[in-house]
């Protein structure tokens, strides 16, 4: 009993210091990886903007005001107005919702589904593994955009379909990574020990193999996020994204393509895409350096 009491006491005193510790950890991270910290900050801001969306928009993103069309950036319209007099800043803020939502869901489902396929494939071994991997190779032979567009063609453009279309071509990468991790982990003694005391394959996979993949999973996720955001905006640009008039970054660029002499209509949506992808890529690099020093770029 005394021991339990002591533990409780310790836990109580440890509570404030845990905050302090994580604050210190964040501080250290931003000292060691300033670019990584900046990226995390950009992504965090974008997520907040996406969540708060309508609360932040200075104007209604859909209201046309032809008298104010194609105004350059000013204090009233921070990013100027488009050919219908709509406030570009407001459209970017609402566009962030779509980019972030589709980017996050598609990248998470990419690595989760791909990762699960990889683990199962490696654990099953033999013929199953061979067949799954050959099909994954075939997937990988396609340029991403070709497969995404083909899927959109049969599924039709809607938000869930966009997520599916962006997810499917991204499965082979995570599959390959978790497969190779599983193959190496499977040979360790603790797996043999678990098996010899009668653990089921499901238990071994979830308790012993999945935790080994977590760091790789997060690194891969952040890299995959950039790709998913880029894919979403490319589709929007091609007119295959979320149907208009819903604001999307890529679709704004498509409209801007036909307007000459009003560079702000193109500059700001493109900057938004670039910043999001840039942040996702650099965060991935920083996470890789922290968790997987073997892969650290010199």
């Amino acid at each position, binding site marked *: 009993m005394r021991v339990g009491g002591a533990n409780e006491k310790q836990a109580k005193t440890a509570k404030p210091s845990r905050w302090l510790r994580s604050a210190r950890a964040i501080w250290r991270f931003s000292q060691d990886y300033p670019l990584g910290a900046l990226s995390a900050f950009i992504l965090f801001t974008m997520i907040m903007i996406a969540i708060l969306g309508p609360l932040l928009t200075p104007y209604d993103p859909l209201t046309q005001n032809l008298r104010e069309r194609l105004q350059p950036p000013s204090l009233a319209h921070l990013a100027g107005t488009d050919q219908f007099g709509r406030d570009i800043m407001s459209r970017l803020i609402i566009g962030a919702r779509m980019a972030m939502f589709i980017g996050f869901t598609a990248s998470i489902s990419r690595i989760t589904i791909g990762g699960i396929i990889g683990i199962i494939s490696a654990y099953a071994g033999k013929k199953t593994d061979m067949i799954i991997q*050959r*099909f994954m190779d*075939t*997937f990988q*032979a*396609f*340029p*991403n*955009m*070709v*497969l995404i*567009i*083909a*899927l*959109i*063609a*049969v*599924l*039709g453009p809607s938000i869930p379909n966009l997520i599916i279309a962006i997810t499917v071509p991204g499965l082979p990468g995570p599959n390959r990574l978790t497969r190779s991790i599983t193959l190496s982990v499977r040979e360790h003694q603790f797996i043999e020990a678990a098996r010899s005391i009668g653990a089921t394959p499901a238990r071994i996979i979830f308790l012993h193999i999945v935790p080994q993949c977590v760091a790789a999973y997060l690194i891969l996720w952040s890299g995959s996020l*950039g790709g998913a955001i*880029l894919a979403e*905006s*490319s589709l929007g*640009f*091609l*007119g*295959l994204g979320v149907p208009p008039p819903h604001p999307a970054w890529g679709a704004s*660029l498509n409209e*801007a*393509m036909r*307007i*000459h*002499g009003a*560079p702000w209509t*193109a*500059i700001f*949506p*493109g900057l938004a*895409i*670039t*910043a999001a*992808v*840039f942040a996702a*890529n*650099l965060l991935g690099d920083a996470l890789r350096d922290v968790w997987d020093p073997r892969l650290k*770029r*010199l």
Partner: protein
Amino acid sequence: MQRYLIRRLLWLIVNIWMMVTLLFFLMYVIPGDVAMVMLGEEGGTIDPVQYELLRERLGLNRPLHVQYGEWIWNALQGDLGRSYWTGAPVVQEMGIRFPYTMGLTVVGMFWVTIIAIPVGVISALNRETLIDYGLRGFQITFLAAPGFWIAILVLSFLAVNFRWHPRIEYATLWSDPVTAFQQYALPGFILGLHSSANNARMLRSSMLEILGSDFVRTARAKGLKERTVVYVHTMRNAFLPVLELFGSDVQMLISGTIVMEMVFNIPGLGTLMISAVNARDIPLVTGIAVYIGLVIIGVNLLLDILYAFVDPRIHYD
């Protein structure tokens, strides 16, 4: 070597079969009802007569294994069906468009090579200096900035300041290589920026890894000139991992072409694919995907054979 080549060629047949099968299931089986998709599901009211007619025309009213068998049989004979809207054979339509896409991809690859190698090497040799930081800034910027955005900005700048607009007609590499090269120079350059950044990054880290290895130290220790160490000992070895990127570069470039063609009005496979999607012309979309898949499989085959010659460490088993 011969055994390797034979195995590789047999593998090629399996590859093609798997690709065609995958696309058949992806495009005709999984989404449920292609005929419904093609007639458009917006209205909700679909004329049953028209629906049955379309199903018959696409052969969707037959059992799945018959459809699959016929699809494979025709595909292997080079027949990918007919475009639903124009009625022309899909292969014929793509034959007209492919040279433009290929021209753009080849010019893009040319730029990638020209940009990536000096950027990567100079960046590595001037590690942690201002030059390196600048070049790395180039790398991370163009990895993130979408090519179509850069293209729009450049075109808008050229239109306003020089009254220069994208062409309406393009030459192909077959008909007039010199003109084609001039015409694709700008779109190819923008197209290649992303892959250039990627390759330069790879080359930089692979150079640094090799510069730090034992045999380079030995080379320096025995008094070789720095130039010999860099050009003969380091660069040759640093290029191998970058060469491996070539296959994924081609994929990335083709992905980019689809979007870039739209900005520059190039009548290639990309613009064809987009208009096919908008017209819900599923046979044409599938055909283009098969076509591009074949191109990639071909490129990978060539690369594998090239490796076997370049790198004697590759074993043929």
